[in-house]
């Protein structure tokens, strides 16, 4: 039990949790903006109102003004969440607003399954110290050292992700039994879904019809789907399993997109799996690029570039990587201390040389996660 707790509460850098806040926040902003035409339009027909979850508290659908106020407030709160503004108080409000907004959107006769994980991840991020770095809240404060309070929320988010896949696998077994693995159910689903789109005047997958004739391929896909879904919890055990699972799950969603023209954006861009990885490296890379561009522009204008030791490092918060940390938590090329005679290279250059994981541009969190080997 102690061993399990120690693994669960292994320390992580604050930047990793902050990176999740920024990435998830940006996704939420993009999603809400992309859905604005729906909210501004007149597609919410009162007769179709089928409240789900928290929206069951409503007896009637919201009026247009209240609906727009809800989505507008949620969008504003999403921006505050992403920037890390008064996170302790505003983030829980944002989480509840996003829950209400997206539940309302799903309360019209069809529950989509593309936004569940986003809401669940935001609910977790809202009640943990996700703005201890790379945030407005953290400006002017000394950087927080890696700690256990930054690690377990990421593991919880990863556990939530794998649980949702497990649930999907269990649903297939409960509704279709092990016969689901034969591929017939998948074949029927692909055919019905594409025909439904065609009859509704919506684009269908261009590869679906020829694909339906290959029974053995469908069986392989069905078996693969069950392995990915039922085996999802194994991703929490070992970093290599986590990497393999994330690639397989991502491939599954790519297959769904190709064969059914159904996009699950949250996993497709890798956010569903980001808690398993050192996702802070993506933000650090973006910050480094932004700073280089700014320095370049200043040089062109004949101004001395800001940077050097003035802007402290803290890209992944790993003390053993020899970073310095400063009030703004931005990236800079401060060399890591090297032993005598060793080649010394800038810390940020080492980070930049890491391979990118699918979708998230990050590497596995193998130093302090339960998924480590």
């Amino acid at each position, binding site marked *: 039990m102690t061993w399990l*707790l120690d693994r*669960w509460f292994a320390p992580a850098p604050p930047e990793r949790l902050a990176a999740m806040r920024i990435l998830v926040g940006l996704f939420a902003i993009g999603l809400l903006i992309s859905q604005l035409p*729906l909210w501004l339009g007149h*597609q919410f*027909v009162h*007769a*179709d109102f089928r409240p*789900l*979850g928290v929206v069951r508290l409503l007896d009637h659908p919201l009026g247009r003004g209240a609906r727009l106020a809800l989505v507008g407030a949620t969008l504003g709160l999403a921006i505050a969440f992403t920037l890390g503004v008064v996170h302790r108080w505003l983030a829980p409000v944002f989480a509840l607003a996003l829950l209400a907004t*997206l*539940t309302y959107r*799903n*309360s*019209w*006769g*069809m*529950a*989509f*399954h593309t*936004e*569940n994980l986003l*809401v*669940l991840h935001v*609910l*977790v991020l809202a009640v943990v110290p996700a703005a201890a770095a790379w945030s407005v809240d953290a400006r002017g404060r000394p950087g927080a050292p890696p700690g*256990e309070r930054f690690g*377990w*929320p990421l593991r*919880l988010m990863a*556990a*939530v992700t794998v649980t*949702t896949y497990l*649930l*999907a696998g269990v*649903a*297939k077994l*409960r*509704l*279709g039994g092990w016969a689901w693995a034969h591929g*017939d*159910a998948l*074949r*029927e*689903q692909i*055919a*019905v879904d*594409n*025909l*439904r*789109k*065609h*009859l*509704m*005047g*919506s684009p269908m997958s261009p590869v679906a*019809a020829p694909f*339906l*004739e290959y029974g053995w391929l469908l069986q392989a896909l069905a078996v693969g*789907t069950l392995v990915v879904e039922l085996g999802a919890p194994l991703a929490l055990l070992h970093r290599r399993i986590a990497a393999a699972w994330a690639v397989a799950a991502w491939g599954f969603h790519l297959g*769904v997109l190709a064969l059914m023209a159904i996009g699950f954006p949250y996993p497709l861009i890798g956010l569903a799996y980001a808690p398993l990885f050192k996702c802070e490296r993506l933000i650090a890379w973006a910050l480094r690029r932004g700073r280089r561009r700014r320095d370049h522009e200043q040089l062109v204008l004949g101004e001395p570039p800001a940077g050097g030791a003035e802007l402290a490092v803290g890209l992944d918060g790993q003390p053993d990587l020899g970073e310095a940390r400063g009030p703004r938590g931005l990236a800079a090329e401060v060399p890591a201390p090297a032993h005598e005679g060793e080649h010394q290279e800038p810390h940020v250059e080492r980070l930049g040389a890491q391979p990118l994981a699918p979708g998230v541009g990050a590497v596995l969190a193998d130093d302090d996660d339960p998924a480590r080997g």
Partner: protein
Amino acid sequence: MSTTRLYGVVLTVVTLAAVAWPLGRHPLAGDSFPLSTYPMFAQRRRDARLYLEYVVAVGPGGGRRHVPPALVASPEVMQAITTVHQAVARGDAPVLCRRVAERLARRSSYRGFDTVQVVAGNHAAIAYLVDGVHGSERILAACPIPREGAP
């Protein structure tokens, strides 16, 4: 146990219990948001048979175009399907038909069409897609696309 750990344990247990809670519910009847049973793609559809109500625009020569969901009800296919189905179930197919016809009247890309039909189709999806074999259809409502200057 430190406060951090206590908070972490409580939040972990509560969150995972909530996310896993739908395991105790029927995969179809128990689906909700954001706590879901994730029943998508799980159900068998015997013979891939699809019964669906949809909307088509028909031209004078009999040419047809399936009207996209955004012009019927919602940009979301599944939500549009629900709207059409519920309209038909309420006996409002003619109302839906007229509403769609008014929308199409404002679209230049539908100038070659003069009628909107709400249709109930019964198709075998694999035969339809692979062999091009269409099933049966029944017209539930038909209405003209109003044109300026038309009688």
